[in-house]
């Protein structure tokens, strides 16, 4: 049962450096008992001093090194919590609750995976690429969108895991100019025919456009969603998204029913 496969622990910061713009990479040592995270899972990160900021912040587990017990996160500074996180130094302690959430599902025998990452969304997809990139007979194409060349992060890791990485930037400073969905849409029919499974994470606008695009074809697509969270384990009902076809209570919890959902399940 997935429920008990999470622990509330704390770790020491090994590194916390700016990668590009307002994006940082955080590396934390974790306790020996930290369960192996599955692709798409996340952790709640908590600053340990005082009651402000109060709640943990959900970050996807970007990478995990079980041998050395090191978890890596990529994060963007968008508010108080992430700003406070960015001030932490090597040697400071940090709270870590995880791994949390339902991971991406890759059906037995899937031979073609397509990853669609917008901005910091790459953080949720990296473990998937690394796990399946090593499998024989499984091809991975990655569509990576960013605002500008300087905002692209995590490219090396993706390149080493994927068969192809197509880059788009909104300002055209590298790769094709445009939105990642605009590039993807051209390949969609071909990908659908090839039986591709899509996995996407990015801004809500990107996912909503993807949802519209996918009305035309029947490629399966899993997405990782974001919502503000408190408990991270399904108790507070704070993180819900509206879903289709649930009569009494039309909501599901991002923290434990997700963060991975079938794109067709969500009300956009």
């Amino acid at each position: 049962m997935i429920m008990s496969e999470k622990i509330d622990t704390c770790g020491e910061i090994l590194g916390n450096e700016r990668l590009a713009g307002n994006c940082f990479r955080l590396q934390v040592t974790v306790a020996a008992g930290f369960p192996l995270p599955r692709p798409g899972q996340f952790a709640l990160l908590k600053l340990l001093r005082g009651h402000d900021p109060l709640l943990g912040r959900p970050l996807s587990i970007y990478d995990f090194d079980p041998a050395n017990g090191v978890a890596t996160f990529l994060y963007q500074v968008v508010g108080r919590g992430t700003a406070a996180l960015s001030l932490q130094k090597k040697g400071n302690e940090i709270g870590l609750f995880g791994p949390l959430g339902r991971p991406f599902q890759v059906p037995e025998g899937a031979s073609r995976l397509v990853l669609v990452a917008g901005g910091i969304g790459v953080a949720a997809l990296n473990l998937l690429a690394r796990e399946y990139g090593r499998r024989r007979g499984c091809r991975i194409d990655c569509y990576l969108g960013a605002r500008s060349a300087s905002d692209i992060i995590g490219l090396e890791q993706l390149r080493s895991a994927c068969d192809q990485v197509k880059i788009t930037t909104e300002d055209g400073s590298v790769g094709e100019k445009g939105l990642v969905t605009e590039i993807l849409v051209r390949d969609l029919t071909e990908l659908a025919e090839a039986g591709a499974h899509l996995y996407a994470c990015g801004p809500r606008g990107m996912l909503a456009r993807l949802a519209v695009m996918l009305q035309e074809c029947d490629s399966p697509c899993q997405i990782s969603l974001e919502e503000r969270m408190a408990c991270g384990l399904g108790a507070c009902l704070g993180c819900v998204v509206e879903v289709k076809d649930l009569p009494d209570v039309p909501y599901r919890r991002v923290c434990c029913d997700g963060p991975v959902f079938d794109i067709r399940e969500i009300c956009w």
Partner: protein
Amino acid sequence: MVTKGSGVFSIVNDNLNMAVCIGRGLIIKNPVMTASGTFGYGMEYDGLVDLSRLGAVVVKGLSLKPRAGNPPPRITETPAGMLNAIGLQNIGIEAFLAEKLPLLKERNAVIIANIYGETPEEFRQVARKLTGAGGIAALEINISCPNVLKGGAAFGSDPKLASEVTIAARDATDLPLIVKLSPNVTDIAEIARSVEQAGADAISLINTLKGMSIDVERRMPKLRNIIGGLSGPAIRPVALRMVWEVVQKVSIPVIGMGGIAEAADALEFLIAGARAVEVGTANFVNPQATLRIIEGIEDYLRRHKIDDINDLIGSLAV
């Protein structure tokens, strides 16, 4: 060894009595319970918290029928606190009894059902059904939810309505009846007295303070519901003051809550006179907060050479 104090006790290895009576003879093994809405239906914390170690598990507010709750965003953080406008999303009592209660019983949890109704009559019905089901140790009636249009806090801010709802629930149950008060009132002791007279066995407080937060970049409320309930350490001084006011005016047990995050916080409420405490928002920050608080209280009692927690309760020197 015979413990001093109220006579309520449980034997643990070092003769420390942590057991307290929270009304109508209901003795719980220690004074630390979970606050409704912050611990789900209990099983969410399975594997992290041994539910049988808690004084009691107070489950998410239950209504006659399932409720969808409010549209998101439902929560936002504030300084040392959070706002929520869940709007009492819940699976309804039928599903609770069928799916959740059996699991909780298996875990040997003492279960307190928090209930909500839009009318006194609904409170009566919910109380009756839960009482009939068996396996529930007490009912906590929520007359103080700030996040629903009907009922909710309206009942909690008027002594007469509060009393009506209490009478309706009292009429339907022999279980210990805890009435949970709203802090959004001028005189909470007055409401407390009126629910005591209406037959409550205990009073719990506080529910959340009504609050609001605005996203200044988008000039929109951070919560879809505009207004939400403030909880967490930020509200602790207000909660403690209200508990203090209420314990001086009623003679039934008082259960304190509001911003309890550590043992020292729980001790403030006990020393002020609360018979037990509920831990809410702290469960989100530290899923094992309840257990740490129980251990911290035990340490404190040993350090202060107090054998029976009942000797600590209400011992504030003023």
